[in-house]
């Protein structure tokens, strides 16, 4: 089943709606005196996510009140599960965007890792052993992106635009353009990692762990602080002696790693390696980051916000079904959400500057 079919399937099985504008909530947050009063408090990141989480909550309530079926646990879990792969990519993407880099290649990385893992398993590698190989592949592709960006002194936007197609092309060639099937689906990898331990899809457990881990990494560790320092002022970072090139390699490797992680989970869930999977995911991951409060201008970022952004996109898509909007309008609504969020973000930044 391709992801489009799956999305349609899930959406119809559920029936939900949206119309979320995280940006507006952040307006509200900025304009509310009580929120402004929190400004000097050092725990910035708590505040940064507040707006987007509020919007996510309002969206869910906005659909759930007229359509209580939407609040059904299974439906909420499947809606969350729909966004899990983009969420994971967005978790890594936050690091790239925070240091003014972009990783457009994640869609290609995702497909290539998926194919590599599926081929290994089909050819007899124990599935749990294929996972580290997939993760290392993702890291290697991220390092490749960073090295090419550095050696050619080009923006990572352009380099990863190229490697997006390059990596997907390798995946397609390795898979001979076909889905890789005949995998040992009774292996514990497929039943456990593709299943619902504790009643919750395994991928969501992984996502939860990644959110906690990377939030701490971004806000509390030296690496995270370097990423934000470089994004805040690349020249000053270089003049301070911060290792810009090494940090770039690490950030893009991290983006590759979370993408490979998504690929491993997708392989476990689908039980097949489809080289055409994940088309357009890169733009959705970037959109999720921006909705979640990570500006393209860098300097700050929020892992929690990025995941909430991805969830908002997913809730909007499935919510349209509840409001009986034709499925063909899904892209339209998604685009609308992104535009509203980005417009509100830039408007906010302008007022913020004026205040200074």
């Amino acid at each position, binding site marked *: 089943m391709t992801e489009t079919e799956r999305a349609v399937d899930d959406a119809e099985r559920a029936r939900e709606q949206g119309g979320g504008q995280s940006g507006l909530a952040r307006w509200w947050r900025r304009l509310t005196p009580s929120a402004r009063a929190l400004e000097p408090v050092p725990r910035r990141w708590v505040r940064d996510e507040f707006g987007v989480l509020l919007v996510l909550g309002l969206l869910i309530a906005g659909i759930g009140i007229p359509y209580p079926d939407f609040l059904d646990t299974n439906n909420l879990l499947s809606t969350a599960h729909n966004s899990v792969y983009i969420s994971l990519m967005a978790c890594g993407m936050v690091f790239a965007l925070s240091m003014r880099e972009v990783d457009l290649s994640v869609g290609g990385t995702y497909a290539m890792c998926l194919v590599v893992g599926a081929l290994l398993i089909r050819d007899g590698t124990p599935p749990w052993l294929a996972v580290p190989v997939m993760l290392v592949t993702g890291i290697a592709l991220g390092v490749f992106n960073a090295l090419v960006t550095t050696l050619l002194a080009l923006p990572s936007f352009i380099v990863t635009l190229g490697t997006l197609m390059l990596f997907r092309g390798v995946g397609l060639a390795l898979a001979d353009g076909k889905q890789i099937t005949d995998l040992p689906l009774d292996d514990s990898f497929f039943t456990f990692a593709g299943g619902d331990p504790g009643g919750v899809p395994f991928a969501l457990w992984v996502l939860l762990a990644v959110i906690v881990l990377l939030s701490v990494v971004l806000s509390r*560790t*030296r*690496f995270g*602080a*370097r990423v934000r320092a470089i994004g805040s002022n690349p020249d*000053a970072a270089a*003049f301070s002696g*911060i290792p810009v090139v090494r940090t770039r390699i690490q950030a893009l490797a991290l983006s590759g790693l979370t993408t490979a992680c998504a690929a491993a989970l997708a392989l476990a869930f689908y039980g097949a390696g489809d080289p055409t999977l994940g088309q357009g995911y890169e733009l959705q991951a970037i959109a999720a980051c921006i909705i979640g409060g990570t500006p393209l201008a860098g*300097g700050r970022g929020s892992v929690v916000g990025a995941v909430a952004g991805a969830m908002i996109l997913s809730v909007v898509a499935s919510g349209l079904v509840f409001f009986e909007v034709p499925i063909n309008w899904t892209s339209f609504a998604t685009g609308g959400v992104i535009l509203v969020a980005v417009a509100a973000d830039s408007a906010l930044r302008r007022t913020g500057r004026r205040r*200074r």
Partner: protein
Amino acid sequence: MAHDDILVAEELVKSYGGVRALDGASIRLRGGEVHALVGENGAGKSTLVRILSGTLGADGGTVRAAKDARIAVVSQELSLFPDLTVRENLFPQHPPLRLGLLDRSAMDRAARPVLAELGLDVDLRTELGELPLADQQLTEIARALLRRPKLLILDEPTSALPAAAVDRLERVLRTLTDRGIAVLYVTHFLDEVMRFAQRVTVLRDGLVALAGAERAEVDVPELVSAMLGGRPEQPPRRARSLAADRPPPVVLSQVDVDGRLTDVTFTVRAGEVVGVAGLQGAGHLDALAVVCGRTAVSGGRVDVGGRGLPRSLRDAVRAGVAFVPSDRKRYGLMVDRTVWENTTAVSWLALGRGGIAPARSELVRRTAELTERLRLRGGPYDLVVRLSGGNQQKVVFAKWLATEPKIVVLDDPTRGVDVGVRAEMHRIVGELAAGGAAVLIASTDLAELTEVCDRVLVFVRGRVTEEVRGERLTEHGLAVAMQRPEVTASD
């Protein structure tokens, strides 16, 4: 107005806010003469140029021009379009048209005689950015001449030019004055004044210190005196006690940097404050760049902090170099971040002190110690953008002090701060030296060098021409040394 006067300005007054930029300045520009305009930074030269060219209105005084006196300005920074062709650059506003399209042959017919007169032999279809800087400058002069001006204002045209191009400019100026054009030549280079100009006017603090004197009547020391005035000179510094037994932290030996430095040799010992001075492009800032690991060296030996030549900014930082840049917002600070994030950027993020994930309270505590020591008004959690300029500069100092640097490189450290902060900065520099750091400082403010330095290396056209120390370390002494024409000026 005499018959050969092109433009006469009298008693010009202009204030910006409360600051008097011009306070009754007069100048008389005659056809067929090169009239030099000199003065220190901030003396009012640019303001006068802008009023004469009509881009700025004066608060008082008169400007009278001869009939049909067109004025063209060639500005300090080139105002050309590097991606357009030479031809397109020559006609930026009203290019000749035929049938609504650019008339290239008409453009070429108009441009050729002017270019020939300037001795500029280029294909008009060349993209401007591919020309050497000197030819770009001539293109800009050509563009000005195509407007057939009676007065040509050249605002510091030679600061970026090699010696040969200056010779060519001299010939060009002679051609122009032979045609009866008046040239107002703004410059810092007094040797050029002596070469090119028939007259010279010196501005000081918005006033005319020397009015249209004929060149034969003045010499360089007199011009310097007129620029600086009778300012009280600082008493000479007493020598510090230096750790002579230890190897010096900064050693440059016969260093060459392509096109910028030639055979530069100097050392800075621990506990010493050494200044570098020079006119724009003289190479003193390139010497700082070498120490900071920002410039590739083509010859000679460099040792910084006992680790040889720093290959990168990061290399230099790890060798113990602290660099306080002149443009602090661009190179020194993350203005949208808090004080503590800025002060830990070097010690923690670059040098790794504190480990992978130190407790934030510990980072903040260390910041608080530094801000207290520097008497910085603002807490660790304040955003840098909300601090005053002086306090922002203290944040830059704080982030380097946190590393206990062995070598401190300062580029114009007190630009744009008030006198109180300036004095504090100088106290900190003194403390750093007393604590055993080697300090290297450049400044556009010569008084600053005389106040804080033990000695000052003077650069002229890429070479160290003089070391000024002791009783000769005065503003006047430095200004004269910076002007000294190089012995091998014919290169």
